[in-house]
């Protein structure tokens, strides 16, 4: 059902255990309605993602809800520059693909910490009219942050008609700052702490243009030039200590499991 209904930009919420598990939002990277499958790409950063990574073929996720969020508005803009940082390349891909199918010229900028963390390069190459890869350590592509090629693209004539930036909050913030002087409209996709994902709790709220908006129903995409990233990043850190404790405990448990095997 989710694979049939989902559109680019939408996400799901999953929970590994009904009684005590946490609910985490993940963007849908791809879907195959024929097979009834969706593709999720995630990085192991805490307890739930580690446990998710430890699952094997045939295991099942207890709870999966979606597709959630307002789909990306896709139309023919002209030239669209899509920036994906790290794991953000996963949600960027369906949007870039949709933009291409709508007749846009698509420039993709893919950034990662190092070569081994560059993902989906083949798929992006298939759809992008131009691809720029950069790594923080220079192990692949240019040694640069994504903002550097983004600035160069903005300086071209004609400048791009739309930018899409998806990645860590700090990257999206600086992408928005990079495009602001060029007045290139910039869409960002936010991933905040959520519980229900249907607008019921307000835990995911962010300040956009001075107004409170819910990422789960009003988003996840917003005008990057209006998002209060500093407030959002502070809210994302609200449970840092609890998350770290759970993460550390999870690593201990994994280590014990490995030893006993």
């Amino acid at each position: 059902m989710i694979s049939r209904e989902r559109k680019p930009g939408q996400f799901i919420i999953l929970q590994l255990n009904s009684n005590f598990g946490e609910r985490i939002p993940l963007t849908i990277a791809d879907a195959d309605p024929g097979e009834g499958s969706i593709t999720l790409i995630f990085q192991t950063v805490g307890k739930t993602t580690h446990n998710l990574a430890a699952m094997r073929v045939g295991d099942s996720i207890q709870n999966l809800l979606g597709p959630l969020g307002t789909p990306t508005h896709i139309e023919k803009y002209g030239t669209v520059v899509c920036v994906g940082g790290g794991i953000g390349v996963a949600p960027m891909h369906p949007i870039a693909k949709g933009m291409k199918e709508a007749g846009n010229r698509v420039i993709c900028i893919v950034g990662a910490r190092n070569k081994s963390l560059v993902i989906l390069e083949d798929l992006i190459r298939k759809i992008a009219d131009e691809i720029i890869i950069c790594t923080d350590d220079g192990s692949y592509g240019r040694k640069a942050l994504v903002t550097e090629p983004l600035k160069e693209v903005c300086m071209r004539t004609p400048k791009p008609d739309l930018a899409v930036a998806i990645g860590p909050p700090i990257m999206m913030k600086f992408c928005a700052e990079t495009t602001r002087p060029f007045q290139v409209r910039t869409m960002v996709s936010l991933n905040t702490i959520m519980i229900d994902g249907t607008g019921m709790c307000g835990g995911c709220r962010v300040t956009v243009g001075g107004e409170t908006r819910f990422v789960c129903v009003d988003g996840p995409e917003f005008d990057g030039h209006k998002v209060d990233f500093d407030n959002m990043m502070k809210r994302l850190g609200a449970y840092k200590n609890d998350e770290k404790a759970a993460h550390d405990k999870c690593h201990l448990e994994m280590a014990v499991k490995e030893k006993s095997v």
Partner: protein
Amino acid sequence: MKSADQLADEASHLFKDLLPRKDALKPKDRSGIPAQEMRVQDPQVRRGNMNEVAIGYTEEQARVEAMRCLQCKNAPCVQGCPVRIRIPEFVKAMADGDYGRAISVIRENSLLPAVCGRVCPQEVQCQEPCTMGKILKNVDHAVSIGRLERFAADREREQAGKKAPAVKAATGKKVAVIGSGPASITAAADIRREGHAVTMYEAFHKPGGVLMYGIPEFRLPKKIVELEIDNLKAMGVEVITNFVVGRTRKLQDLLEKDGFDAVFVGTGAGLPKFMNVAGENLVGVFSANEFLTRSNLMRAFDRDHADTPIVRAKRVAVLGGGNVAMDSARTAVRLGADEVHLVYRRTEAEMPARVEEARNAKEEGVIFHMLENCKRIIGNDQGRVVGMECLRYELGAPDESGRRRPVEIKGSEFMMDVDAVIVAIGNESNPLIKKTTPAIQTNKYGNIIVDEATGRTSVDRVYAGGDIVLGAATVILAMGEGRRAAEAINKLLAQ
């Protein structure tokens, strides 16, 4: 305050005295019987646990309380009940010790007696016009109809084991019920009883709606809600969780592609209101919905097991004066806050919370601040709440709700030292159905507009009821709405 044992002992003696002459009691004798108090966990003890506060009547208490009923011919209590339970009949059966009959009388009109016996505001419904309360000039001394209802329902559950209501032969028609709160539970049962197939859709991973995520365990044990859902399943209702109609599937598709003959929308009032003051998005500010959902549904109170964390605040402010504000304040107490302050801009007399809940909160140490309100919330450089600037108010002329309007006192600003703020000033209708079903008509508050007699919406074969129609209201009203729409749907499908 008398202890639970003391109350039980007293009732035991009274009962022995009353039993031989129970049918010969004159009204004067009945009004002389002391009103039976609810046995509750000691406040100091319950501050530290999530268990239900009210322990329930003993059997003797229940029968003594039932003997207080005057069996008024005009039964004003029935007029006060939103679903018109035949109260004198069930109370008489209680006095006679015939609990089976009592519960079957209740069940003629109410599907969720164990829930309603706990969370209905009886003091403004059935018990408000009770003659006994009038004679004793105190609504607190009316016959405790709610506690009797609860006793009958609990007894049925614990002893007899509830049998699923009979279901008529299959009609081949099918109905989708969206949401799984009280309105939807009632609608699902009533429609299923007529032999129609019913599929219930819930967005969360556990069904029950506000009964699961909103009302805390200490007021409504989740076991009771789970049993009600099990009962629906036993009747053959299919319950699908993790399914948000509008997103996972459009409402129109249910009718046009999936073969449903009718749809009931009971999606509730799940959109939290905020104050729109500065600092409201700081870390440590929560909607009551978020705070309660973390604790109830996600079980964050169980810090050793739950993966969902909840704030570890020392000084908590709760803004609001309704039952949800009380639930939030009392949950904060149980999560270990040193101080919990309830801030409300009118006085206790205007507070929409049940008197009993306000009393429970005070007994548990919640500090009430009346005629005060938050002006802005102050954060530190990490974006965390460190305080709240408040204003004092006084009561002015009555407003359109009939309550005296709170008027701010200029220059009365003062600081309150808090590290968490819970906003419990109400909820609006959940907008998802409206957003994804443009044809459905809503009013300016986002409530779905329905025909009053049938619950029919502007979309053919789609009915609605509960808080999505009423705005945030009560469990019993939602139930009544579910019942009304079910009746109309059954009529439609019989054609």
